[in-house]
């Protein structure tokens, strides 16, 4: 293989990686927000993404919504479900050991997966084409419009979220709760409301990812959330869990690693290499790339 085609191939793999990474990032944004505020690995997050995809699917097939209304419908539906889950399964355990909430999160995750299977059947559904995808060819490198849309949407959502968290009153409250829940309560912040709001936003983000992925890959099923959920969590940790730009960075890095490993070495070791790199990065920077390492005061 000559060098110019190698460059083209490398460029194509970068495009593949970034487009895959932006999906991880989109899911990781919600993951990281929820972790940031109550330090919970919300294992059900990947399944909310699945629920969002199905909400989008039914909105377009049964109610004949177009893309934007379907997206909003799905985000709203998933947001509500996220808040309900928080209220029912997590809030009563807020003062319990973290690991207890983790187990309920696993319970909720299984419930959504298999409840979904019972409700909508385990058969994959094909997502209707909501907008035609155009394929652009740049010097042998191929990119399609859906990939661009996903990347733009995830960047946009990251910017909006960063704005919300840093500039708005609710964002201030969120940061306060994240920093010290008890102190925030004493300052008159309605902690329950803030946490509920965070779950709503986080779940809506997952739903957005679900709809976009449904359109992009064209196929959804009740177990579709397991692997992306896990990968998004890896992405969030990689970037520094609790950090919004970290989620974006971690997702992109993970996507690129996967693409390069599949493209230039062996696709069979793709996930193993991704996990190995995660571990190496954690050993080097224990709080992830953009995370803050908090030293315990002695």
């Amino acid at each position, binding site marked *: 293989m000559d060098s110019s085609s190698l460059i083209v191939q490398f460029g194509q793999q970068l495009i593949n990686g970034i487009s895959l990474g932006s999906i991880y990032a989109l899911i990781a944004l919600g993951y990281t927000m929820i972790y940031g505020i109550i330090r919970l690995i919300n294992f059900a997050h990947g399944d909310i993404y699945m629920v969002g995809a199905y909400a989008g699917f039914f909105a377009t097939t049964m109610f004949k919504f177009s893309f934007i209304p379907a997206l909003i419908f799905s985000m709203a539906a998933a947001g509500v479900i996220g808040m309900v889950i928080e209220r029912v399964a997590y809030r009563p355990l807020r003062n*319990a050991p973290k690991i207890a909430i983790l*187990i309920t999160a696993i*319970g*909720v995750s299984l419930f959504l997966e298999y409840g979904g299977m*019972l409700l909508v059947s385990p058969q994959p559904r094909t997502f209707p084409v909501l907008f035609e995808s155009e394929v652009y060819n740049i010097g042998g490198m191929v990119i399609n419009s859906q990939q661009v849309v996903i990347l733009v949407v995830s960047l946009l959502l990251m910017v909006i979220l960063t704005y919300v968290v840093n500039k708005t009153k609710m964002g201030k409250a969120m940061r306060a709760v994240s920093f010290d829940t008890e102190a925030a309560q004493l300052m008159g912040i309605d902690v329950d409301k803030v946490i509920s709001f965070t779950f709503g936003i986080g779940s809506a983000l997952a739903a957005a990812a679900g709809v976009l992925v449904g359109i992009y890959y064209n196929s959804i099923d009740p177990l579709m959330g397991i692997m992306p959920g896990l990968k998004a969590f890896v992405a969030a*940790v990689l970037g520094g869990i609790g950090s919004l730009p970290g989620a974006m960075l971690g997702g992109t890095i993970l996507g690129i690693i996967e693409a390069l490993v599949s493209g230039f070495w062996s696709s069979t070791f793709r996930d193993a290499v991704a996990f190995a790199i995660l571990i190496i990065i954690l*050993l080097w920077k*224990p709080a992830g790339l953009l995370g803050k390492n908090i030293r315990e005061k002695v």
Partner: protein
Amino acid sequence: MKLLQKTKSDIMALVACLAVYAIIQTLILTDVIGPFWQLNIVLIGINIILVVSLNLINGFTGQFSIGHAGFMAIGAYVSAVLTVKFQLPFIAAIAGGALGAGALGFAIGLPTLRLNGDYLAIATLGLGEIIRITILNISYVGGASGFMGIPRYTDFTWMFAFTVFTVFVIKNFIDSTHGRACISVRENEIAAEAMGVDTTKYKVLAFTIGAAFAGVAGSLFSHYFYIAHPASFTFMKSFDILTMVVLGGLGSISGSITAAVLLTFVSAALASYPEWRMIIYSLMLIILMLYRPQGLFGNKELSLKMLSRWTGGKKHGSTQGN
């Protein structure tokens, strides 16, 4: 005097074990316990080994590990290679499986146990997956098809002997100065260091012992089901074990045993309702956690005192974070 008492309680425990063994073995031989429940009793034993050994890491030493299925896989495959490819006796294969898993646990634990909390959790989860994916790519052990043609050596006797052995060894370990050192790491790492406890050493030690016993469980597992298959050792399996640990109570061996019996049993009982099985199971998890977030036994062991407190009213929560 004290020594005598301790020896006496050990002898009593031994007698009780033998009695249980004799009763169940008789029931099996007389076909009162049918093959289906025999199988599930073996599964219960294997799960007890897994849960107690993970509890040593998560519950007693306070290190949040969710990669236990990986070590179980190592035990399953190493022992199968030893019996099938090298025709070693079963007991040697189990030892090999335990050594293999323990050695890997040591090699993995040394660097990763510097991490704590959720970071350690994701690292161990990743390591478990790395182990599984690696196995998936080794055609010598069957790759994706699994390692087939493993003889069935495990039976109720083997399982019972190793379950009792595991509980005995881990319980003794916990009750010794080494176990107390592990617990001190969980309770307060900085204070433990200040008391002269080499915290890194004890974290790695607990991790290694836990991994080795997971290897024992894996060996028993593959030599019962004729096959070792990568799909049996996914992170969902690790979650299953973790769930049992938490449900029983972090830092309670009797809790671990109870949870392993209970959940294996529930899973078997729900087998007749395949569509609803996972839904009922997941709801049960959520509800149990909502009502007993510290697990069935908290970090206590089952004792008469505890029973009376249960009937007597509220028990103050004894909880610790991860």
